[in-house]
């Protein structure tokens, strides 16, 4: 019944996409979404030594009918990101879409965090995204455009105790997104963000402590956590031509949490 141009604008048929951080649950769900919409895929890891997890993602993607190319790399190393961007452009013909699912949670009291914590949290959550955007843009500017989506969190907008550096890094990603959107607007690169509410995944603090989880669930407007798959629609909207007039925007997927804060 439904087969019109508007729905077709969400299709990624013929598009080339790179997902960074594809070995983790959010990157995995993103990869499956892009595959379901028909994109050709390169799946790259955040960290080395993640071959097994990346293969898990590949299996999920293949179930959606796309055979991805895997690339184990370290998103904290410039040379790796640069080589991955070039590799993706070459393999895909065109690098239309880059999804940065680069996230390393950190929690701890601020007064006792040492300098290595600062470097670790800011490097893994912010510097990786910054470098990935630069390397993506280097390819996209050459080919005349593309679209980048940076995954971040509602912690970008509000404070959480014992998450100071993490909140700061997430805010950095959010406003980096806006600044790069302004910078590349006339060169055909759209840059947008996705902010997630409290995620239901193994690395989430919501799953670290039963007591905290109970308190949190009671507080959340829908009494539920956000599953990585819940991000699919917003991600597809932002990476596809359906959102051609949208840049520097962030879509919050949080079941109304930000309405009460």
């Amino acid at each position: 019944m439904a087969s019109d141009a508007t729905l077709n604008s969400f299709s990624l048929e013929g598009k080339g996409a790179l997902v960074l951080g594809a070995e983790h649950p959010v990157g995995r769900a993103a990869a499956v979404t892009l595959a379901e919409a028909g994109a050709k895929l390169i799946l790259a890891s955040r960290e080395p030594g993640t071959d097994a997890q990346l293969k898990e993602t590949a299996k999920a993607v293949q179930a959606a009918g796309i055979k991805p190319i895997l690339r184990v790399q370290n998103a904290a190393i410039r040379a790796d990101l640069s080589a991955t961007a070039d590799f993706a452009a070459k393999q895909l013909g065109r690098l239309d879409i880059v999804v940065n699912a680069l996230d390393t949670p950190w929690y701890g009291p601020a007064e006792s965090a040492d300098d290595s914590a600062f470097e670790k949290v800011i490097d893994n959550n912010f510097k990786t995204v910054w470098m990935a955007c630069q390397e993506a843009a280097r390819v996209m500017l050459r080919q005349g455009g593309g679209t980048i989506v940076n995954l971040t969190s509602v912690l970008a907008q509000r404070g959480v105790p014992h998450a100071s550096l993490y909140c700061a890094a997430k805010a950095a990603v959010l406003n980096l997104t806006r600044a790069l959107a302004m910078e590349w607007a006339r060169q055909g690169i759209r840059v947008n963000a996705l902010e997630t509410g409290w995620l239901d995944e193994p690395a989430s603090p919501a799953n670290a402590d039963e007591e905290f989880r109970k308190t949190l669930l009671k507080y959340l407007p829908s009494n539920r956590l956000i599953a990585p798959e819940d991000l699919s629609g917003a991600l597809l909207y932002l990476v596809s031509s359906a959102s051609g007039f949208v840049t520097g925007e962030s879509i919050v997927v949080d079941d109304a949490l930000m309405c009460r804060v």
Partner: protein
Amino acid sequence: MILDALKLDDRVAIITGAGRGLGRAMAVRFAEAGADIVAAARTLSQLEETAAIVLKTGRKCLIVPTDVTNSQAVNDLAAAAINEFGKIDILVNNAGGGDDSRGKPITEITDAEWRRGLDTNLTSQFYAARAVIPQMVKQSRGKIINLASGYGLRGGKHNYMYACSKGGVIQLTRSLALTYALNNIQTNCIVPGIFPHNEEMMRFFKGGKFVPLGRTGEDAELGPLAIFLASDAADHINGELVAIDGGGLAGGILPTGAIPNLPA
């Protein structure tokens, strides 16, 4: 499968202001995505034109001439939708108006201008939400999409009523979202940037020269966003504003195109 989640097959969508412009564009897009349409607006002849286009998609279109500033008329609209289709899946609060008082110094704005503006832009959305919520609660399912504006977030010189009414729309959205989160009713806002509807507006906005993307929006571009927010693909987006403005709200600290010339 994500592309299937975007379809609106057999949903019933009330769209206000459906007689022209964005409202008509959304009615047609929704019908193409599989929805039956309840088209509301003041002018019957315009609704008939919208219906003629909707019917070509193979979907149904009920037309209900409605003054959205009249609460009884808005209640009747919801009742007509339920009577015809037995349910209301989607409400698009699109009807709204410009500002008779815009550009006037605050001392010259009349009580009537202020009230008429708020009635048209804000109270109308409250009336429509109030009219459909009982049915959506009964269904344990519903989507409300409110049209706001960048002026709901930023101020404008000599621009009081419009900024206040659209700011109110955003707060109405958030409170509905929170209140009915557990009833599986999602309420969100579309924040359109510059979508000119005639040559004069196009000239006024200089073809979108001041928009970061370098152009104005086209009505057809609202379709995918409205469909996405009305669909299952947006089930966990609630109380959110989505700007479709060519980057307008992400910048604005400098005039578009200006780049600080500082030593590196």
